[in-house]
């Protein structure tokens, strides 16, 4: 009797949780489609507001960030557009539309994108890292880890297949090491490093966190910087070429 009651309670709880999830998902969909209609009517402000409401539901999706990015882009907010494209590409890094729009938006950054020439193997690794999302890298690492466990167990137990499964275990180990490296690189880039995008048309990076301090270099809308440390209304940032300076918090937006 007790067991039956417990089962019924569990079913009710699951159904309730499911309906809550479905409600939020539906609300996201509604705002998403409404945003699309506003965008088509060239009502960009309303479209941006609608997409933002969709995001406030606590759920997110790559197309939602992508569409919001498009709305920002058409509204002339290059920095915010790049942030949205980058967020979308974190979820689906291989989407050609996102890549294309991101590349186009970046090409419009005044003065071009500051970049450093790296050795070919680092460029190759960065390219491979860029192909996978953090979730996919995690899933691949876990799958390889489970496969490795199974292969080791079989190699230990079944002496007849020990040789084959030992070789297989070594191969899986190498792949696992690679996928874990990718995961670590991705984790560092997306979680540990605090990257930000300049959202003001032009902002001055100064030597000190003071309004009257000397300007070291100028950053333009859409440029990516790495946030190192906060200090009141100022953030210490590092540009991709390694130059560091202080910018106002309001001039950049964290990814």
């Amino acid at each position, binding site marked *: 009797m007790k067991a039956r009651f417990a089962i019924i309670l569990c079913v009710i709880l699951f159904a309730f949780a499911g309906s809550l999830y479905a409600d939020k*998902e539906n609300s*996201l*969909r509604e705002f*998403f489609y409404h945003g*699309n209609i506003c*965008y*088509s009517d060239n009502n960009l402000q309303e479209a941006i507001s609608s997409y933002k409401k*969709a*995001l406030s539901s*606590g*759920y*997110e*999706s*790559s*197309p*939602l960030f*992508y*569409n919001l990015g*498009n709305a920002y*882009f*058409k509204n002339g907010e290059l920095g915010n557009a790049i942030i949205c494209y980058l967020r979308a590409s974190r*979820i*689906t890094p291989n989407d050609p*539309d996102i890549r*294309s*729009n991101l590349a*186009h*938006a970046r*090409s419009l950054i005044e003065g071009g994108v500051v970049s450093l020439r790296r050795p070919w193997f680092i460029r190759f690794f960065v390219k491979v890292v860029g192909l996978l999302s*953090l*979730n996919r890298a*995690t*899933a691949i690492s*876990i799958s390889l*880890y*489970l496969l490795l*466990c199974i292969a*080791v*167990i079989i190699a*230990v*137990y079944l002496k007849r297949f020990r040789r084959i499964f030992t070789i297989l275990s070594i191969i899986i180990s190498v792949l696992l090491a690679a996928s874990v490296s990718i*995961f670590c690189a991705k*984790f560092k880039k997306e979680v540990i490093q605090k990257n930000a995008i300049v959202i003001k048309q032009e902002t001055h990076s100064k030597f000190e966190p003071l309004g009257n301090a000397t300007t070291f270099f100028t950053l333009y809308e859409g440029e990516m910087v790495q946030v190192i440390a906060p200090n009141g209304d100022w953030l210490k940032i590092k540009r991709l070429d390694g130059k560091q300076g202080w910018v106002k918090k309001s001039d950049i937006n964290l990814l």
Partner: protein
Amino acid sequence: MVTYIKNNYIIKLFFLILCGIFLCTALSFAFTQDISFEATVDRNVSVVGTAIKLNLIFNGIQNIPAPNLPDIPDFNWRYLGPSTLMSMVNGRISSSVTHTYLLIPEKAGILEIPSLSIAFKGKTYSSKPIPLEIIPSSSSRAQDNGQQDKQERPKEELGDKLFLTINLSKDSAYVNEKIGASIKLYIHSLSLRDIAYPVIENDAFLVDSFSQPKQYQEILNGLAYNVIDFNTDIYGLYPGEFRLKPTELSCSVIKRRSPSDIFDNFFGQYEKYPIIIKSIGVPINILPLPEGGKPKSFDGAMGNFNFTLQVKPIDLQVGDPITLTMTISGTGNFNTVNPPKLSIASSFKTYEPETRQEARFKTFEQVIIPRNDKITHVPSISFSFFNTDTLTYKTITTAPVPIKVNPLQKGQELKVFEMSRDFADRIKRVETLGRDIVYLKGNPGSIRKKSGTLYKNKALLIMLFLPALVVILVIITQARKDYLASDIRYARRLAAPRKAKKNLINARGLLKSKETHKFYDAVFKALQEYIGDKFHLSTAGITSNVIDELRARDVDTRILDELKTCFDMCDRSRYAPSSIHEEEARSTLKMLENIINGMEKIKA
């Protein structure tokens, strides 16, 4: 010091000799040139009483004295002086002398400077007559024409000083026939800048690009003009009677500004006036090509051409490419020359020919590939054109070119490269692509919780330890198993208490069920197995005799006594089972337990 002065003197002398030789050579060149004579005026429109400059130019000579002019009716004249000119252009030295006279007209009207004849060294040189328009003085003209004349004069003056003419090589031509067009810009006493190429706008004609313009001097109506001659070819596109629209040419006239203040004397004295000069329209008749005698292979070529064919290689294997170089040379409209058609049916694989066009010839390089070894020659190729000189159609046919096509060797396959039409089109097409963002996505795709990343799922991370634990356990178990299999003594010793415990339980059960005989069998078996496993002895051979061996291994005597008693009791049960009571059996079981516990404390 003396040596230095001497050297310097020698160098100067050498330099003077060189200059002398150069001057002598130049003068000798000048004297050996042909002598020509021409007469020009600075303008051919003037007012009564206003002087006109008359220049008598002798080219190719500098030492001719000022000639005495004959009486020129209605003009007074005065000699002003000579001026000489010597120039060297592209290694050619030219010299000239100009004797200038002032001519003052005495009456208005259309007057003429007659042909002047000058005799020099037995030869007589004559100039052309120069017509002049002399208009009445300003006071009398004002009465006649009033203000109107003031407006017209500048136009007339510019009309004399700057104009554009167009001359066509023929006034009647066939469709696509080459018509030479010479557009001349005449400039007299004007400075021009930014001269553009002329523009001929007409839908019925195709205009070729202009060649490098020529520049020379020309005397026209007694005025010396600097002429810029632009040459091109035009082609009539449709039959009919047309009038070529006026040709336009844009340039800027540089004119001196009257100085308004002292600074204008130094700066900004000249102004640039952009103007467009137009020629007059030219009538031209474009005729259709005659239909009679038109050959089948005629493809619109117009001109007078020659056609040659070159075939390489002529000894080859099936599938190897042959290059046909078809050269069409001569004069005419090369734009109308298309590649001659090949009638080689299916025996060859053909590709699009590559075209190269120069001023005097057009070459088509066509690759063909023989498909079989039965081909013996490249068939004859015909090229037809309309000969614009003889106004007839002409066909040139090449002779068949013998070739040797060797069969493929064993194991070889015929491979003919095929370029897809689509790919070829793509190569040809060059597009300029626009750039913008890609449009919105139609659906929200896969929705996930914000920051719903896998690595944050604690349950998943904890679960990940389980497979690792299983692997560790499996490895340890297997390692132990392998070790036990390799050390039997250790394995038996390890198994001894477990087996003894099992046997004890069995014996206890038999005692409970009062099966005394079986009980003692079980006790005996338990002792045998335990002692055998514990001390790695043969189980079957263990009897009471084992006590001596155990004593040697320092087993406690109390345990050995109990062991002996146990073995004795087991023997009694076999030979006199009725003499054993239940109490004794219990005591035996107790002893067995003591023996096992006691022996467990001993290291084997």
